[in-house]
């Protein structure tokens, strides 16, 4: 029995959002008399952090503290339409919609503040700490709370804004097949190192090194968390998960979580990640988003690493010990490739 080490890499370009009907999302922002703001969405946050990121985008655009913004989402009765949380589109599409809505709300807020301070709205600026003051004269100031109260009870104004982000649908050219399915792309490269046991066919992860270019990272800790976790979802697809291991024959499919294989805490390996930020011209504050691509490069990189380790090319997923072992046997033994 020998354990063979192998290294493989993969690079990807990943489209942000998709081309279906222009892939729109909407957002509504309004102030409450307390001077706090509510963002109404129907987009879903399953833990990716969209609530945190849209909250940051709204606060930054309005010029108020992030604590003063509440994001109310996941209900299509109370929030405007969203296509959904998929295609790595949340930060980019929903973020742009929130930005547009917050910009409109900010316009009304500045007008209301201007009326209270008896100045021109274009002479005002926000300090990001909950105050609006005259440029160059910070003592001529009013809190966003007092502006909200004045708008509500005195001026009869709604400090609110509507936002939608829509990329015009790109039709396929019937002659060339050409189209523009996305407005921006994220990029990644991942190197996986594995150890393959030529007696059992088992593949163990040794380490991963990756670089992700995903526009501006609006919340670096959430980005890092998603990349760390998403890579393991990729490993899971590469090596473990399937409802039909002998597809199209449905035999021996897992019936429950005990039989449906996924990595456990003992299967993980060190993963060194570099995040490169090249702001997207049409992203909210330059963001594209990590999304699905945090799992994608792992699969080809692991397949390449297995080839590098034992010389077998497995091209259907998951790469189970049985497939590796059968392939090693049919070529008469492991054939380690040159290490690069």
């Amino acid at each position, binding site marked *: 029995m020998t354990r063979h080490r192998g290294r493989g890499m993969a690079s990807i370009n990943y489209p942000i959002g998709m081309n279906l009907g222009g892939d729109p999302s909407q957002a509504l922002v309004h102030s409450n008399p307390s001077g706090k703001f509510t963002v109404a969405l129907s987009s879903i946050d*399953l*833990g*990716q*952090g969209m609530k945190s990121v849209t909250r940051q985008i709204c606060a930054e655009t309005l010029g108020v503290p992030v604590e003063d913004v509440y994001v109310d989402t996941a209900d299509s009765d109370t929030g405007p339409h969203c296509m959904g949380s998929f295609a790595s589109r949340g930060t980019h599409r929903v973020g742009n919609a929130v930005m547009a809505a917050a910009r409109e709300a900010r316009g009304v807020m500045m007008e209301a503040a201007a009326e209270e301070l008896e100045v021109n709205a274009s002479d005002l600026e926000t300090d990001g700490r909950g105050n609006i003051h005259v440029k160059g004269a910070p003592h001529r100031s009013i809190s966003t709370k007092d502006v909200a109260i004045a708008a509500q009870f005195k001026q009869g104004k709604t400090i609110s804004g509507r936002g939608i982000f829509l990329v015009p649908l790109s039709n396929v050219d019937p002659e060339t097949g050409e189209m523009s399915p996305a407005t921006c792309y994220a990029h990644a490269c991942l190197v996986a190192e594995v150890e393959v046991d030529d007696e059992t066919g088992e593949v163990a992860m040794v380490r991963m090194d990756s670089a992700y270019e995903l526009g501006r990272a609006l919340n670096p*800790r*959430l980005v*890092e*968390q*998603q990349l*760390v*976790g*998403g*890579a*393991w*979802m990729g490993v899971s697809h590469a090596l473990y998960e399937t409802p039909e291991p002998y597809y199209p024959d449905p035999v021996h499919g897992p019936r*429950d*979580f*005990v039989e449906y294989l*996924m*990595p*456990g*805490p*003992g299967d*993980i390996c060190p*993963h060194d990640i570099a995040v490169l930020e090249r702001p997207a011209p049409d992203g909210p504050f330059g963001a594209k988003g990590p999304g699905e691509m945090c799992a994608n490069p792992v699969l080809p990189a692991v397949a390449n690493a297995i080839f590098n380790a034992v010389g077998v090319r497995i091209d259907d997923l998951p790469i189970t010990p049985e497939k590796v072992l059968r392939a090693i046997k049919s070529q008469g033994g492991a054939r380690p490739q040159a290490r690069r």
Partner: protein
Amino acid sequence: MSKIPLQFRHNGRDVAIFVDGGTNLLVALRELIGDMTPKFGCGQGGCGTCSVLIDGELHLSCLTLAETVAGRSIETLDGIKQGPNLHPLQRAFADNFAAQCGYCTPGMLMAAKALLDRNPSPSRDEVVEAISGNICRCTGYEPIINAILAAAGGRVSA
């Protein structure tokens, strides 16, 4: 079927309920006591999110017959908060971004508490072993392991 009277301690408080024979502890906690912190994941001991402590020992409440805990002391995630303050493990999970969707978190926290209660300074391998019965789909485990090590080392924010 007649109901069985059952008494035990739940997070330091005596509780008395009537259960059907065959009721598992998870159902008793969630539906009869109203403690929703142990989660139903797989219902067959494969995922760990229903984990609770019985007399300080880690158990899967979905596989535990409610009748067997008569007179014993059950601790759930609902009971680990210290008054208005989060338990250091909860704090460390927040600091280290150790939750995404959050569904595994109650089980992870109870498994971690069971470990630190008996071994306050575990090695990384001991932490990995302690949470090996718990599945997490989102985080890749790394932030969870780091959070538990941070709590053990007293490295938590105020």
